[in-house]
């Protein structure tokens, strides 16, 4: 098992590679700034995380996977501190450095979900997506959306109706506008007009906002 100092090094290798395309050993040691950098590097080589080739440091497959998770934790932590806890930039960096070492996989996923699967950190660098992000992209996010975002002239299927108003729900369901029903959006202006079977129904934009649909 590697320690947090080794993780820092792996993280550094990833960021340098991200910026320059390759990692020179000298630059890495200079940036690390610690006297024992050389020993840490050797430990990583021994554990099969990196290869040393022509004065360049190259991540192995194992190293890449590990670095990716560290980066992901670090940048998600930054987002959390920045967006939710509103921590100032200086302390954000140092705290994030600590977060990356102790966040478990499960907690990382929760944070990622909480933040809505962000794709970049506050500095604008990309956050490597985890399994949870991939899933969301496929299943939920762009698939179900309010009727107001459907393009005119397109067909859709009602997924669900979310509204605070009980009466509105009853009115829609008594018209037969229920989940699973196929609709066609005729126009949005001046009022929404949808076609359901052979019935044309005019609805307000406020009601249309509560109807969630998917393409189909």
């Amino acid at each position, binding site marked *: 098992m590697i320690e947090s100092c080794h993780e820092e090094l792996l993280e550094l290798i990833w960021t340098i590679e991200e910026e320059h395309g390759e990692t020179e050993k000298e630059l890495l040691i200079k940036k690390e700034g610690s006297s024992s950098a050389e020993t840490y590097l050797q430990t990583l080589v021994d554990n099969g995380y990196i290869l040393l080739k022509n004065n360049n440091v190259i991540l192995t497959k194992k190293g890449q996977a590990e670095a990716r998770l560290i980066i992901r934790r670090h940048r998600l932590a930054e987002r959390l501190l920045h967006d939710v806890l509103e921590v100032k930039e200086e302390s954000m960096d140092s705290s994030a450095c600590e977060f990356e070492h102790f966040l478990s996989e499960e907690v990382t996923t929760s944070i990622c979900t909480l933040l809505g699967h962000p794709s970049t950190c506050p500095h604008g660098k990309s956050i490597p997506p985890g399994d949870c992000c991939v899933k969301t992209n496929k299943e939920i996010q762009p698939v179900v959306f309010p009727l107001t975002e459907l393009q005119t002239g397109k067909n859709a299927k009602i997924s669900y109706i979310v509204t605070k*108003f*009980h*009466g*509105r*729900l*009853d*009115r*829609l*369901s*008594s*018209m*037969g506008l*229920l*989940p*699973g*029903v196929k609709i066609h959006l*005729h*126009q949005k*202006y*001046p*009022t929404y*007009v949808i076609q359901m*079977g*052979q*019935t*044309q*129904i*005019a*609805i*307000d934009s*406020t*009601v249309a906002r509560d109807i969630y649909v998917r393409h189909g």
Partner: protein
Amino acid sequence: MHIDTTNTSKIALVGNPNVGKSVIFGLLTGKYVTVSNYPGTTVEVSRGIYKGLDGGSEVIDTPGANSLIPLSEDEAVARDILLESYNKRIVQVVDAKNLRRGLLITTQIAEMGLPVLLVLNMWDELLDRGMNVDINALQGSLKIPIVKTIATHKVGFRELFHSIPHASVPELRINYGKFIEEGISHVCRILNNATVVNDRALAIMLLSHDESLEKKLQQKLPPDSFQEIARIREDVQKHFSNPLSYVISIKRSQFVDNLIEKVTTSAGNEREARPFTRGVFFFFLVPLFAFFIGYKLVSLLLFTISMKLSIPDLLSMILQLSAGGMMSLCFTLYLYETEFKTRKKISETLGRITMHPIAAFPLLIIILWAVYKWVGEFGSGVCVDFLESKIFGSAETPSDGFNICIYIPFIKKIYTFTHINFAGINYYIGLLAQKIISKDNLIYELFLNEQSGLIQVGLTYAIAIVFPIVGFFFLAFGIMEDSGYLPRLAVMVDKIFKQIGLNGKAVLPMVLGLGCDTMATMTTRILNTKKERIIATLLLALAIPCSAQLGVIASVLGSISGIYFAAYALIICSQLLFVGYLSSKILPGAPSDFLMEIPPFRMPKISNIFIKTFYRVNWFMKEAVPLFVLGTLVLFVATKLGVLSFVERMGKPVIEHFLGLPVEATRGFILGFLRRDYGAVSIFKVLEEQGKGHGIDPKQLLVSLVVITLFIPCIANFFVMIKERGAKNAFLMFAFILPYSILIGGLLKIVLRVF
């Protein structure tokens, strides 16, 4: 009409809005009820007798309902009829092409355990859309008689009559899932057959939290049972995140969807209009009509500004022609691109274009213009003139008769058949009267006085002026209603109506108000909330001139100049919006959702429009003629007793100084309470007399007409306001409108002085 309810069965017509219940009612009973292509027109329950069954049975036409768990007043009416305790058969009318929505109700009737006959109406429209319903399969699943009809063409009625006695309870049972079913059985135990209606149906309604039903059951159940029911409902609700009524609706809808899958087939290809018809429509009629729209829009614009600017004829010709060309090009290209290529039906294209975000607005202006030409110029100009001066005439002087002639268009000649030497009904009555009594006799004056005789003014006025105007308006309104244009208008004005606390649905009472505010106030019932009904009633009373009044105003102002008519329209519209906006802010309550079914665009049936107009005018005349005569009588008495001059003196400071009108105009305002249009005419006459020789002062005229329009509603309308909204609300509105209209008039006078 009295029938013994104990030993006859009743027939209740039930169905979604706008499926043709009223037409079928008419065919069953031979009685006419207003038939319309606008959802929710039947607000009152009509009853008639069907003689086909032994002893005859009463037929009840219910307002359209989408669900038997009511969400509005009219749906509650429909539901209550089904719950009443007597022997009855249900004739459920379904729009065949919208079978799914109809069957949602059938399942509810089945739960109630009532015998049903299913009528699949508008069968032709189903076939037109390339669909088919396997009636035998549906009959097999539901075990009830089903007939197909085309009610407006009287197709399929023999089977309908034959099948009524065979109506039976549908064999279906929806499984609502473990938790709800348990809840139902618990509630059933409490109900314990306390009512005539099936317990299961009541239990489902109660679980859906139908408050109006709880009120109805109050006498039949012990008081603590409602707490028990509420507790059961809460227990069941714990298992679901959505409201129970919604969960139940979804289950019901799934059941119906399964059923429908088995019985409907889609032939795939819709029946297309013949290529020739389509060609003519898209490449001849559309360009031609669009050219006309563009041409007319510019000419209307030029007419409005012609007071201030003089535009050379040639320039205006060029402007009009180019606008026509542009419009023609735009419409044709757009329709060719979007509609012609996709092989849409012509009626669908028309339906879509009349609520298109851009194209619908020029269309609307042209339609308004056409209605004005029809009602304002032809109806209240030509026809009124003929009836008033030729047919009725005056008791004093004979009219010079009229010619029966024909106008031959191309050679521009009038061919006269004969001259009718008819001196006017009133003249003959006058002659006859003078044989018995002298002209100075009080009784002669009472009936034939030039200013306030009951026949000379009251009756003549009602029949010669109001009758044609109202008749022509209702004809135009009927066409808009039956073609399906009105609901599309609702779509277009929804955004604006939202600002004044109403929604698009209110377009029906508002447009009907242009015909008769009294009738329109009654239809405010179709609106969803109390707040909306109050606002609509207030705006109708304040700012919507009725057709009789508008006819007079349009002909008076139009004869002076276009710009004054435009100014008048602008002021009235701004008041409508301003007062509406204010009252939407002041009155408590949230705005209601606009959720309306848009019926298909149809070719209106001329016979139906005439019948409908006949019934509406008939109703109107019954209401109006007595009031006219009464009003004239009041005026006559007031003149003789000197009350009028007293009121004139009282009103003098306001009328003369604040509004800048002659004192005699007071009489017009008093008359305005009896008949709004009547007031407008009499003010016009006063101004005409005052300006003898040098013409009427248009500014004075504008002020007086604005005030008389905004002024308190006529007495008939006021009575209906009391009936519909309660005496307190009606008097509050009255107390607001009276000073407000005078205030606006005064402000207008000051503003006009600047110009």
